[in-house]
């Protein structure tokens, strides 16, 4: 029985391609002077401006959506956006992110809502800068900056802690922990209705 024999898969793709192709005739001899054109190419190139960017002295402009080092953002009153959900860690294909969540309490309100990240580490020895963590983040807490000078001389230094990753406090921001804006809840924060901190937020409860 022929069924036991291996049968080639029928496809006319090769025949079709062969019908269209022009048979190669080996090396097409080009004229002597045509070959000399190459010398002119290299000679004239010498007087063009080199493409080299003198890197340490001249920092190249990166593209607007460059995948640089990460940043943990804050709301306008200084509370952290990160809610410690670990979605970034789950999305990470290189297993570079480690998050430990913790519940917010009235004494320790780090982010609006229920939870915040107690520990947040990114291991830049593992990170491949794919940006899947940024896509996964539900609160836009994690974004990437255009900073690319991350190299260092110790493995330990390349595990960045939460303090290293957190965005700096800008004007009108208070360092957490502090209570949420009076009368606001995490929905208000999420919708971006909080524009600055309130004097009462500084009060230690």
């Amino acid at each position: 029985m022929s069924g036991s024999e291996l049968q080639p898969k029928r496809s006319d793709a090769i025949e079709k391609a062969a019908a269209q192709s022009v048979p190669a005739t080996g090396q097409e001899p080009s004229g002597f002077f045509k070959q000399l054109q190459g010398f002119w190419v290299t000679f004239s190139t010498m007087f063009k401006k080199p493409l080299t960017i003198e890197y340490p002295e001249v920092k190249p402009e990166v593209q607007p959506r460059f995948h640089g080092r990460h940043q943990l953002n804050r709301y306008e009153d200084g509370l952290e956006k990160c809610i410690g959900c670990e979605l970034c860690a789950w999305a990470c294909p290189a297993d570079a992110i480690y998050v430990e969540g913790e519940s917010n309490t009235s004494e320790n309100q780090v982010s609006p809502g229920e939870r915040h990240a107690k520990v947040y580490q990114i291991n830049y020895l593992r990170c491949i800068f794919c940006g899947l963590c940024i896509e996964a983040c539900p609160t836009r807490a994690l974004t990437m900056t255009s900073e690319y000078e991350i190299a260092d001389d110790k493995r330990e230094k390349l595990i960045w802690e939460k303090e290293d990753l957190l965005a700096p406090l800008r004007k009108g921001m208070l360092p957490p922990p502090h209570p949420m804006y009076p009368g606001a809840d995490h929905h208000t924060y999420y919708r971006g209705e909080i524009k600055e901190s309130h004097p009462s937020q500084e009060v230690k409860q």
Partner: protein
Amino acid sequence: MSEYAAMLLDDPIWLIAVKGLMIFALCVLLTLMAIWSERRIVARMQLRVGPNRVGPFGLLQGLADGVKLALKEDLIPKAADRVVFILAPIISASTCFLAFAVIPMTGKVILFGEETVMQLTDLPVGVLYILAAASVGVYGIVLAGWSSGSTYPLLGGLRSSAQVISYEIAMGLSFVAVFMCAQSMSTSDIVAAQSQWWNAVVLFPSFVIYVISMVGETNRAPFDLAEAEGELVGGFHTEYSSLKFALFFLAEYVNIIAVSALATTLFLGGPSAPPGLGFTESWLGGWFTFVWSMVKVFGFFFLFVWLRGTLPRLRYDQFMKFGWKVLIPANIAWIIVVATLRLMTQQGASQFMIASFTGGVVLAVLIAMTLYESSKKRSEEAARYLPDLPEPSFPVPALPTRKEVGE
């Protein structure tokens, strides 16, 4: 004996020693500059900048590389023949300097109160001596390849030496016409014989063949098959590291400068000024001629770099075919033509005779070229038709062009 040769003969011993030292210093310095300028020029040809960090414009890059090489670990493979392994780079690096002994680098100058020429000695067979020195240099290559006790260096060493030897023949033949013109093998006589016209003009075919074969002789791109990375790693010096590798490196560059200097001497009038600028020869008490010889040498060096930046590497068989089947026969034919023309003028042949002989030669060359072209075309036509191939049987698919080729 020429005026210069007589002048060189009465050089005191100390002056000869000083000159030897100067030649050595010049060669090492030129090598450092050559490495730097080659890297910078090739970089510019590739829209890069090249080394620009060490010293002003990166000028000290060669020095930094040398120090780095010297401080590296010196490995000797277990399978290597220790004595020969150590001897080989020494042979290479010491013979490469020898050629400079007979190369005139200035006209008449005054050095420490002695009237002399910047040339160590003037042998009556100067150019043959250079060829001999270059041949001894081949031992360095072949011994390095053999003593490494490894396959790639052995193959690379064989390739290199085959290449150097074959191209030395073409090179030596291109000297013959020069010897006939100058009626001497001494370098100073050859320079003196070019006072009217440079040999590069008079003996243009010899010049072209020499320039091609000097690239082959020094194992440089596009003839650097001995270090075809994809096939042979580094060629004969694959197993070498540290200072021993540095010696090979030095030898390669000194050889490049040596063949360039030889080309300058034999074909571009050595240290004499280009036509129309003869008055510059007396500047700085004659020392300005050194600038001219360096300018010419650098011109050849630039050619080396330019070739490297432009041409891809040849295949080994193409390279050998080119050397043996094109350069050598063409050279021999050219020598016969030169010899005939010389004999005709010596025996007082009429202008008409000489002109008709030249015309006949040109005609013969044209006919030969046409015949060659047509035979090439015919063989190419034939190559397009492949023999009947067996029907494809699974799992081997049909050759894609099989049908078209048969048509």
